[in-house]
């Protein structure tokens, strides 16, 4: 009988729940029935890659398709050819990253001299940020430098980040920053 690694783990998991097994030639029907009773029956399974170090381990994310639609569990992906289902403590704890009461879930604004945050809307936040970017950029934009050479850049705005963004996000971010004329553009790779 051919198993994929994932089937093997599912089967042995169900077996550990208490069914008797007699060698490898057992009848899968009762096991399948039991497996269907596990929490992950209601889960959507998606694959992702761990967001920590750069080994790039594969994970399987089980997302509930009932109720709050949140993560039930995240575990190593046995079919990933690098980590083969294993994870370090950070990867193994990933569900605590996504399901975390300390996460910020609304944009916030800190006013000058204030000692606290104020919750604001996305539209307000992005509108206000855009206004400030334009004001700061336009106030001191350098068309030509002291030598009279054309530079078309701003040194009044700087950006750092991020090695945690996806490739596609990194690309559009640097495109946006460069279109604004930023030269102070850096991130984790520099340190």
């Amino acid at each position, binding site marked *: 009988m051919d198993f994929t690694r994932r089937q093997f783990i599912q089967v042995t998991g169900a077996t550990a729940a208490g069914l008797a097994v007699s060698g490898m030639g057992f009848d899968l029907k009762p096991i399948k029935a039991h497996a269907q009773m596990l929490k992950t029956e209601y889960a959507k399974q998606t694959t992702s890659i761990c967001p920590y170090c750069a080994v790039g381990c594969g994970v399987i994310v089980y997302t509930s398709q009932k109720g709050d639609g949140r993560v039930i569990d995240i575990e190593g992906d046995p079919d990933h050819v690098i980590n083969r289902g294993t994870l370090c403590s950070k990867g193994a704890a990933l569900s605590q990253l996504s399901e975390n009461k300390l996460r910020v879930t609304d944009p916030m604004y800190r006013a000058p001299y204030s000692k606290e945050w104020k919750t604001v809307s996305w539209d307000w936040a992005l509108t206000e940020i855009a206004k400030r970017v334009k004001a700061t950029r336009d106030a001191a934009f350098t068309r030509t430098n002291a030598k009279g050479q054309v530079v078309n*850049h701003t040194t009044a*705005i700087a950006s750092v980040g991020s090695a945690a963004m996806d490739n596609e996000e990194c690309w559009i971010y640097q495109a946006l*920053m*460069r279109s*604004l004329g930023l030269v102070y553009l850096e991130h984790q*790779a520099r340190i």
Partner: protein
Amino acid sequence: MTNHWIDIKNSDCILIMGSNAAENHPISFKYVTAAQQNGATLISVDPRFTRTSSKADIYTALRSGSDIPFLGGMIKYILDNNLYQKDYVALYTNGPFIVDKSFDFKDGLFSGYDPKNRRYDKSQWAFENDKYGVPKMDRSLKDPRCVLQLLKKHYSRYTTQLVSNITGTSEQDLLKVYKTYAATGKTGKAGTIMYAMGWTQHTVGTQNIRTMAIIQLLLGNMGVAGGGVNALRGESNVQGSTDHCLLWHIWPGYLKTPRASDTSLAVYNEKYTPKSNDPQSANWWQNYPKYSVSLLKSFFGENANPGNEFGYSWMPKADDGKVYSWLDIFDEMYNGSIKGFFAWGQNPACSGTNANKTRDAMKNLDWMVNTNIFENETGSFWRGPGTDPAAIKTEVFFLPACVSVEKEGSITNSGRWMQWRYQGPKPLGNSLPDGDIILMLGEKLKELYTKAPGVFSDPILNLKWDYATGGVYDPHKVAREINGYFVQDVTIKGKTYAKGTLVPSFAFLQSDGSTSSANWLYCNSYTEKGNMAARRGQEDAPNEIGLYPEFAWCWPVNRRIIYNRASVDAKGTPWNPDRWVIKWNGEKWVGDVPDGGWPPLETADGFKNPKTKHAFIMQKHGYAQIFGPGLNDGPFPEHYEPLECPVEKNFMNAQRMNPTAPVYGGKADEWATCDPRYPYVGTTYRVVEHWQTGVMTRHQAWLLEMQPQMFVEMSMELGQLKGIKNGDRVKVTSPRGEVEATAIVTKRFRPFKVGGGVVHQVGMPWHFGWEFPKSGMEESANLLTPSTGDPNTRIPETKAFMVNVVKI
């Protein structure tokens, strides 16, 4: 990495130095163990006995900041004992090149040094060219002016006695490591190096790596299975973010950011396109204009055309001779000239060197945009310890980013593998993917600059920004843009590619504006065959060395081991037939994607093949560089002490520290060397349970429980000397700041015998910050680290500085 994670298992000898892979890249150790089970030797060299060391066959310690003497001594050992792979060195490296008489080295300085500007004139390090402008060579490697002989001369000073006196490593241990590793110089044997920040975060960081690259070339370890120079990168997508160039000095695909003196696209392309007169040199960067024009087409789409130099004048230029790097950002911010700041998925208040300076600098900002998953020491700097919010006018916008499992897109691991990932749950609450936020911000800015007059609005208005589907950011659209497509019908070698067709690979990119590609290196990743990064093929390649060519996709063009044409002899026969990467079957290469499809250097009859190209195609001359004339601090690595060191002078030469390293001298940049107030060498490192500044991991109960507090490790001897017991709370101080920590008094550190005396070293993790846990008592080790860095990369020297430790 020139190789990749799984390939580590193919090695005969693994050197882990400047890295603690078992701790910080734990799953990679699967492959280290597999290699050991096959008889490989693991060598761990580290100031401290780490988890990696506990698995090593050979462990020895060295003082932080003395890697070049350690490795330079190995170069001397290899050359003195003739252990280098001669045919490899003669065929593939610039070991045979003749160096011009202007090159010299005296008193710790190479020729061409300008002491006023602390800079070298690199034209003094040129090769002697023949009448065709191609470097002259002595393939017998005997000419006294050939690179190999100059290398031997340079490292003749690196005797084990002197090296031991600098590093604190016993001569016996040095020789044991040298002998074991140098054995991989035997044809068919492979040695690999796994390194990380322990090598890069120094004022000699680039040269640390260069020293090892030279060793790997001498031993014939580049391009072979189980070999290579393998950087273990620190973040899930720092490889991708580097490739897409979120860095001031490069454009996506490692093109150069133009300078003010690059007054036109033609001048720019001319300057950065290397030229070679050797018809046998592929000189792959000669294709530079195809990549730069295709990139500009991605930036500006239809608005970029030959008439406006494809929008070249809309791109910002850097002033000549100026550096806009990390250290400079916070220096300028401290001095008040930077008014607006994006801290996007990064926490400089804890991650940057000299964190006090960074935290003070941010008080000068008018506004900050902080995008993150959790509150952190950067976005909340205005309520940090010792800070009065009523005195801080900075407006801060906190934008909640969702977690990686809540969005779709790709990331690139250290082995250059681009891997697609999918959305599980939707973003929590009103958090959003970074892509959504960036797209919306761009739309707002375009709207503003359309509605109201602005200064030089052209670049913003002309920026191609159609990355939405149904009004929402679509990562697939960007991924296809990154690969690139034909902007109009194009006919290449008789085949016509219709407008809109995805470009099959960068070999098809054009410099006339008929193709666009947002990153030539990633061209081939998302083609008419589909999303290559999403593949999950379980089959290995016929050579069975763990390439898995159909799992995900790697750059360039899915070549898993780069420089692999050096894995064969001149006729195309693998050096090691049991672990072959590519081999010539008489008509073409089989195995891994070859590093260029040209035939081997020689025909089967042993004649030079006119159709061949040299193996190292990204180098102008086609040969790997033992002599490296392009770096800012010299063509050969040389030992210099860190900015702050425990000895009065450099025992190797007359220069105490790197004569070209940047040193910031403002009032927040205090430093002190060989100073009795700071008598111990300090270093920083990580633990497996936390990650970087701990913003993600400190907020998780399971991980915080395992590693709850800031600690400092010290030797039993130092603990006794200072009356510090294991578990005591102590204060670690440097000229820049202080940090409270729990002392771990351990045998894992031992005092070093250096310079005829005893030098103690301590080490700390840098995972903590005042924002969480709520006590605010666990802070960042970067409050101690110095304002200096490498002269090539400007990576700060956070791995070797001087501190004091006192019981509280």
